[in-house]
């Protein structure tokens, strides 16, 4: 991408009713003005647990928060423009972009004009405009207002942070404004643990049934199992770090509240199984109560056939009566096809 850096003057903040925002709920769904074709976040990606399908919402959990604050990570939100702004940028086109925080799932509309809720970013250092995009750069500490990474683990929060770009596409002081947002959901609240109701294990499969966690932002479950004993009430990562045989398998949050996962276990061995919740920001709950069970020795059809005295041994060589070359049938097939194909050409 060609780089032409220019500094942008400030634009006016939004009037809640004068803008493209349709409803209070839509005001807190990240907005995308018609002039913006894509919103991306870069330079910060390794601190993000996941992005939504539209790439306008980034989820951060406890681990990502700790890393980002420790490293004072810098991130850049890029708003790619539909039409390059080739004419000179004037003061009535853009205003310094804003950041603001709302509670998770709060539907109250936010207007930054004269609103102390919004923080105005530094006009000179935080915005960069090229011929195809506008970039907003700021640090994690500045955005989340956290300076000590310890707070990520000790202060539970579940908030949404918006980075908003505002402009007037008609360059009219009384015109309608367009906005584009990037939303960061910082969730340092761990979900509740599920209840592991039952667990069975065979050499190849662990089957579990559970009662759901009450977390409203539940994403999936994590099944932790090991052949060494461990206790519930701790994080899955603590178990997998301490026990070499421990494994962590993802389990989908499904309607049946049960699932079979693939495992590699020794028959008659004792296995310890527990379940944890995981929310959309990647936060684990503490593990459920551990279930101890014995690995059932199973017999599949091939083993049963062989145990019954079956003579099949597998393999791809053709079996023929004793004394005959093993590849005769295949050769006959090929030979017959060649002969008939030749006859067809003569037809």
């Amino acid at each position, binding site marked *: 991408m060609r780089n032409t850096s220019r500094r942008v003057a400030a634009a006016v903040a939004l009037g809640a009713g004068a803008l493209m925002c349709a409803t209070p709920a839509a005001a807190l769904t990240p907005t995308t003005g018609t002039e913006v074709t894509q919103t991306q976040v870069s330079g910060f990606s390794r601190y993000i647990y996941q992005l939504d399908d539209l790439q306008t919402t980034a989820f951060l959990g406890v681990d990502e928060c700790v890393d980002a604050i420790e490293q004072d990570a810098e991130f850049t939100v890029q708003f790619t423009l539909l039409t390059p702004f080739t004419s000179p940028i004037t003061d009535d086109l853009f205003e310094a972009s804003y950041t603001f925080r709302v509670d998770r799932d709060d539907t109250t509309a936010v207007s930054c004009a004269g609103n102390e809720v919004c923080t105005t970013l530094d006009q000179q250092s935080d915005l960069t405009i090229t011929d195809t995009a506008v970039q907003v750069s700021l640090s994690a500490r500045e955005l989340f207002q956290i300076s000590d990474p310890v707070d990520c683990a000790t202060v539970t929060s579940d908030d949404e942070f918006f980075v908003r770009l505002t402009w007037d596409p008609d360059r009219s002081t009384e015109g309608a404004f367009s906005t584009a947002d990037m939303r960061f959901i910082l969730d340092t609240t761990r979900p509740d643990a599920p209840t592991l109701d039952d667990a*069975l294990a*065979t*050499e*190849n*499969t*662990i*089957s579990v049934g559970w009662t759901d966690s009450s977390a409203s932002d539940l994403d999936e479950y994590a099944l932790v199992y090991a052949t060494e004993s461990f206790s519930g009430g701790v994080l899955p990562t603590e178990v997998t770090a301490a026990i070499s045989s421990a494994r962590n398998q993802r389990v989908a949050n499904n309607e049946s509240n049960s699932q*079979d996962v*693939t*495992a*590699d276990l020794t*028959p008659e061995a004792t296995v310890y199984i527990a379940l944890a919740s995981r929310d959309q920001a990647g936060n684990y709950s503490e593990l459920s109560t551990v279930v101890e069970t014995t690995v*059932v*020795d*199973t*017999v*599949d*059809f*091939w*083993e*049963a*056939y*062989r*145990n*019954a*005295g*079956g*003579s*099949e*041994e*597998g*393999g*791809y*060589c*053709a*079996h*023929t*009566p004793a004394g*005959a070359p093993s590849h005769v*049938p*295949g050769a*006959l*097939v090929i030979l*017959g*096809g060649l002969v*008939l*194909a030749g*006859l*067809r050409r003569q*037809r």
Partner: protein
Amino acid sequence: MKTTRWATGALACAALMCVSATAWAESPINGIAEVKFGGYQPMIDSEFNGATPFATYYSNDLWFVETEWDLYVFEWVGKAGIGFHAGYASVTGDIRSADGASGDDVPGETSFSVIPLRASLVYRYDYSAIHHGIPLVPVFKAGLDYHLWWITDGSGETATSDGLVGEGAKTGWHASMGLNLLLDVIAPSTAAVFDKDWGVNNTYLFAELMMQRVDGFGGQGFDLSDDQLLFGIAFEF
């Protein structure tokens, strides 16, 4: 001759609609493609005196589908050619514990799958269908078989037992006879359009009785033989 022709025509009309010989498309005919379906139960348990491991694990028949491409190499009274077949059949059953328990107490499944590959000599008696207006075509086939098979364990991987991997192939032969019903008689104008746009000269529904003996020509091991009744659709091109 006139009496014979009248009787033949009357017989055909009693069973089906009569059709003029001019209903058939004009473009050249090179071969025929078939898709057929049916049940399949290999005779694996025939190896044992009393034990039935296959029936124990797989209580249902395998559902079987096969495609076939025949190329005509000779035409006189009917058409003769060579055919190449590829099919697929699979069945899944519950894994069992060492003491024979299954179901909710023993999670996991084991499957048995087969890909039959065949080469055939094919003869189709469509002479009466073309020249006498009888839309029934008997078909006779015979040839050699090479069937790939494999078994999975509870993890979905290929099963093993005593170091032997549960996959392989069996050879054998097959012979079949079938009866095809020419669908062009039902909608001759549609058939003509089908030929013009897609090159399909004739379309048939058919039933086929196939006898397959796939046991390595009497060798040891799996017997994948079965007698099958198959139903399908064929497009002559």
